[in-house]
């Protein structure tokens, strides 16, 4: 917290289609994200959270406005901002084992081969998949696949993790474990995380700041709520519960 500004989004508007079919998804988004910060984008389904995340990743371009990363405009995707998908089965390479999936990342990143074993060992250990390194994604559980996706991302040493409802398809218990796990990784590595969710509890559990987005068309960030509570957080704790209620009211 309080690091230098890493991602700066200014007056971003995004529309799809043309003329009569034109749909305005984002209408004037302003957001600054500091190094090491954990930011949640929270809003109802279809509010343009994923659109904004795709623009941050460089998959999509803003129709108007600017997105700067470390002071330079974002042009296309790059390994300093790694996107993290909900459907890990589709995002991973299913014909490669866990270890080989990480190796794929190192290969495209052009790390010298001599370093591969050390890095693979390090990231797989970090996510607790060391004993499963030879298994294929189809042989891993949903939570393990997400951890493998995290390991693969960490291998390319990104500055920012962009996460698009990454735990949305997991059962409640696994999701809670993944929250603890992600926070641990975040605290250990100091990565900046932009996390999209429509789950209030998830946002209050994880975020330094919650950016609330309004329902589209023409979605904006209507409110930014700082969550200055120590982690791990207990939602039954009065101060956390107060924030939860406040956010709930804003989204109602």
């Amino acid at each position, binding site marked *: 917290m309080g690091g230098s500004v890493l991602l700066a989004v200014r007056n971003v508007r995004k529309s799809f289609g043309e003329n009569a079919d034109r749909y305005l998804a984002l209408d004037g988004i302003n957001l600054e994200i500091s190094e090491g910060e954990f930011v949640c984008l929270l809003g109802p389904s279809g509010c343009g959270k994923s659109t904004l995340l795709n623009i941050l990743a460089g998959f999509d371009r803003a129709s108007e406005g600017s997105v700067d990363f470390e002071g330079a405009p974002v042009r296309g995707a*790059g390994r300093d901002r790694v*996107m993290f998908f909900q459907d890990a089965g589709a995002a991973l390479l299913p014909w490669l084992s866990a270890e080989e999936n990480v190796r794929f990342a190192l290969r495209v990143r*052009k790390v010298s081969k001599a370093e591969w074993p050390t890095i693979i060992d390090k990231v797989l250990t970090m996510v607790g998949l060391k004993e499963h390194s030879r298994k294929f994604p*189809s042989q891993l559980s949903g939570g393990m696949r997400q951890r493998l*996706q995290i390991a693969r991302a960490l291998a*390319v040493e990104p500055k920012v993790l962009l996460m698009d409802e990454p735990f949305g398809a997991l059962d409640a218990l696994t999701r809670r474990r993944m929250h603890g796990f992600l926070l641990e990784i975040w605290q250990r590595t100091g990565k900046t995380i932009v996390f999209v969710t429509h789950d209030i509890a998830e946002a209050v559990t994880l975020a330094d700041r919650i950016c609330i987005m309004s329902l589209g068309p023409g979605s904006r960030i209507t409110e930014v709520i700082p969550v200055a509570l120590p982690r791990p957080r207990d939602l039954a704790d009065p101060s956390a519960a107060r924030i939860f209620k406040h956010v709930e009211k804003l989204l109602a």
Partner: protein
Amino acid sequence: MRAAGLFAGSIIVAFAVWQFLSTVVFNPFLIPPPLLVFKTMVPMIENGEIFRHVAISLARVAVGFITGCAAAIVLGVMLGRIKLVNDLLDPVIELLRYLSPTAMIPIAVIWFGIGETSKYFLIFWGTFFIVLINTTAGVMRAPVIRQRAAECLGASELQIFLLVVIPSAAPYIVTGMRIAMASSFMSIIPAEILAADSGIGFLLQQSSVLLQTNRIFVALLTICVLGFVSDRLFRIVVDRMLSRYMSYISLT
């Protein structure tokens, strides 16, 4: 083991029904009983006649099939990847694919004569469209998420294409090849009946002219065994070499 037993049982029952139909229900000249067919077959095997025809037909299928697959995969990948190529060629392909190899026999004979080239062409023709359509579909359906995930790990366009898109399309391509192989074994027969002086189809035609129904049945039986064995061999090769690309279909 049980499956093998049932398989053998099914074949034995079929032969019994065949024997019954040919001797009791119909005229044994029209449907020669299995025993007579085997008796006819033995000298044809001993003097190598049947193998000569099989070898010639197989060589025609092999040349047409392999060249057809190669051309179809190259073009199919371009159709799936380059929108302009697809827009330009798709309408033509959608029309041409209704011309079965059989429909092309008369013109093939005029173009290439009754030599080997016309048979190569006809098998090529049949193989080409089946593999082409499957390859295009496979390349188009390579999950966008998977490509984007690779892109933000730092993969270049070429790496995404070679290491993500092509392996993702592999199951479609292989399935297309398998269907095309079965179709090749079907279309070589009319081609040889109408325009050849050797091969299984020619054996059928010649025996028909001479009213040798027993020899016709030997040829028919040979076609069954040939198609079946080649398909099994194809599957074994695919299982050995490509299993990691094929086994995940259920996952995604």
